[in-house]
C-alpha cells in the first residue's frame, strides 16, 4: 500500500515503514536507545530527504521512548532524580549543539563532520562495550558469580553529592550534568536522541546498574527529542507527521515487546548485543567513506533558498 508523504513529497510503502518502525522499536525497548542512529540512515536509504528524515525521526523517538518508559516505570527501574539531572545538562547541551551546528554549517563540510562523528563515536563506544561485556561474560562463566566493581575513583571525590536511591549511588551531581551536556551537544549535531552514547556513559562513567540505566536513558531522551522536534517544526518545517505516525505505530508496539525481551536477558548479554549492533552501523558508515561510491555526484537544494 503506497502512501504519499505531504512534507517529504515522496510516495512510500506503508507496510515497509511499519516494519522498520517495529524493528527499531524492539531495539529501543531492549537497550534504552532511541534507535535514531539506526533509523535515520535507513530512512535516507528508502529515499526520504535527509532533513525530513532527521526531524521526523525525533517524533518517533518520543513515542517509542514514552512507551518504553511506561513499561520501565511499572518495574520501578527508572531513576527519576538521576534522569532530571541528566536532562538539565542535556537541554543546555542541545541548545549549545544547535549553535555549534549552525556555525559549522557556515564553514561548510557539515555533512562530513556528522559522518565522522558517527564513525568515531560508534566505533569507540561499540569497541569498548564489546570488550568489556565479553570479559564480563567470560568471568561470570568461570567464577559463576556477578563481577565485582565499584572502585572509588575521582568521580567520588567531587562536591555537591546527592543520593540516587534507585541507582544505589551517592555521588556528586557534576559528572551526570557534564555527561548530559556532552550527550546533548552530540545529539543536536548528529540528529539523534543520544541513547547509544548515554547508556554506556551511565554504565561506565557513573557506575549505574544496567537495568536502571535503560529506563533512565529513555526518560531523558523523551524530553531532549521533544525539544528537538519543536525546533525542527518551527524553524525548518521538516517534520512529516504522516511518516511519523507510520513509524511510531510500529515503534510503540516494538518498544513494548523489546522491554519484555530485555527483562529476560542478562545484563552482559544485553550490552554485548548493543555493542555488536553499534559496531555494525559504524562499519557500514566507515565503508561508505572509504569505498569508491557508485555515484560520485549528489543533488542538493541550492544555497540561499
Amino acid at each position: 500500500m503506497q502512501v504519499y508523504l505531504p512534507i517529504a513529497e515522496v510516495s512510500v510503502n506503508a507496510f515497509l515503514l511499519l516494519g522498520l518502525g517495529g524493528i527499531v522499536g524492539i531495539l529501543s525497548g531492549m537497550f534504552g536507545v532511541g534507535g535514531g542512529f539506526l533509523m535515520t540512515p535507513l530512512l535516507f536509504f528508502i529515499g526520504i530527504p535527509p532533513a525530513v528524515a532527521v526531524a521526523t525521526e525525533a517524533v518517533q523517538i518520543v513515542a517509542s521512548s514514552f512507551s518504553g518508559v511506561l513499561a520501565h516505570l511499572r518495574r520501578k527501574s527508572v531513576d527519576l532524580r538521576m534522569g532530571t539531572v541528566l536532562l538539565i545538562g542535556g537541554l543546555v547541551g542541545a541548545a549549545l549543539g544547535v549553535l555549534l551546528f549552525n556555525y559549522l554549517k557556515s564553514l561548510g563540510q557539515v555533512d562530513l563532520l556528522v559522518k565522522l562523528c558517527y564513525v568515531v563515536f560508534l566505533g569507540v563506544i561499540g569497541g569498548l562495550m564489546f570488550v568489556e561485556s565479553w570479559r564480563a561474560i567470560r568471568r561470570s562463566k568461570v567464577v559463576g558469580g556477578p563481577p565485582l566493581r565499584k572502585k572509588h575513583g575521582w568521580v567520588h571525590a567531587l562536591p555537591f553529592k546527592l543520593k540516587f536511591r534507585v541507582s544505589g549511588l551517592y555521588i556528586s551531581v557534576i559528572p551526570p550534568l557534564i555527561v548530559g551536556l556532552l550527550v546533548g551537544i552530540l545529539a543536536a549535531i548528529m540528529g539523534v536522541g543520544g541513547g547509544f552514547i548515554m547508556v554506556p556513559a551511565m554504565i561506565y562513567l557513573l557506575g549505574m546498574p544496567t537495568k536502571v540505566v535503560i529506563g533512565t536513558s529513555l526518560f531523558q531522551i523523551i524530553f531532549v527529542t521533544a525539544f528537538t522536534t519543536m525546533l525542527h517544526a518551527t524553524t525548518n518545517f521538516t517534520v512529516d507527521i504522516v511518516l511519523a505516525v507510520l513509524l511510531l505505530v510500529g515503534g510503540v508496539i516494538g518498544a513494548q515487546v523489546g522491554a519484555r525481551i530485555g527483562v529476560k536477558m542478562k545484563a552482559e548479554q544485553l550490552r554485548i548485543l548493543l555493542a555488536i549492533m553499534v559496531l555494525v552501523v559504524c562499519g557500514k558508515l566507515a565503508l561508505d567513506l572509504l569505498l569508491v561510491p557508485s555515484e560520485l555526484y549528489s543533488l542538493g537544494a541550492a544555497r540561499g533558498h
Partner: protein
Amino acid sequence: MLRLLSLLVLLALPVQGEEIVLGLSRDEVAITANFDGSDVMIFGAVKREAPAPGGGPLEVIITLAGPSESVLVRRKERRLGIWVNTDSVEVDVAPSFYAVATSAPFRDVLTEVEDLRYGVSIPRVIRSVGAPANVANSETFTEALIRIRAASGLYQILDSQVDIEEETLFRGQIALPAALTEGEYVARIFITRGGVVMDEYQTSIAVYKAGLERWLFEMSRNQPFWYGLMSLAIAISAGWLASAAFRIFAR
C-alpha cells in the same frame, strides 16, 4: 491602440499551414494520501485548411515539464583516504520533472538548430550559467544531474512513443512518478516536418496536494508551533496507548 497593435503583429506572422487542436485526459492531478503516480494522456489532431504540405512526413513531439528550480550538484573526491564532497556547481534552472515523447527517433524529428531555438531536448531545458572558475569539467555536473534524475524516472526520453494516424490524429502517454512536486506542469506539443517546427501549442496541468495532505502541509507552514505540538501529542498518546494495550494483553 493596443488591440490595433496586436492585430498588426498577428497579420505580420506567416500564415500557419497546419495547426494543433489538443485534448488532455486530465488537466489537473490531485495528490491525495494514496497517490501512486498517474498517467496523463495527451491527444490531439492537426487541422489544415489546404492539402498536407510536402517537406517530409508529419512528426509530433510532446513534452511535459514540472516547475523549475535551481539545484546544487556536488562531486565527491578522495581526500586523505576518505570520500568527501569537494566541488559543487549550482545549476540555475532545472525542471523537477521532464518528459519528451516523440513519434520517431528524436534527431529525425527535430534538427539541432530547431532544438536550440525551442529548447526541447533535456540538456536544452537545463540552464547552468556560471560554474565557478576553479571547477574543472563543469559540464559533467549537468550530465550527472540528468543521469540521477533519469534513474529515478523524473527525466524521461520516450522515443517513438507518440502514435500518429493518417497524418492527422496523434496520441501520447506520459507516466508521472509517485514522488511529485506541486505546481503547474507545462505541456508543449510541436508538429514538425523534415525536422522543422510547423506549429507549437502549449497548455498546463495543475498538480496539487488535496484533502488531508493539503491540510497538513498548510498547517506545517502556517502554524508550525501547533503542528509541532500536535506531532508530539500524537507521539505521546500512541506511546501510552501501546503501553496500556500491552498491560491488558499481558494479564
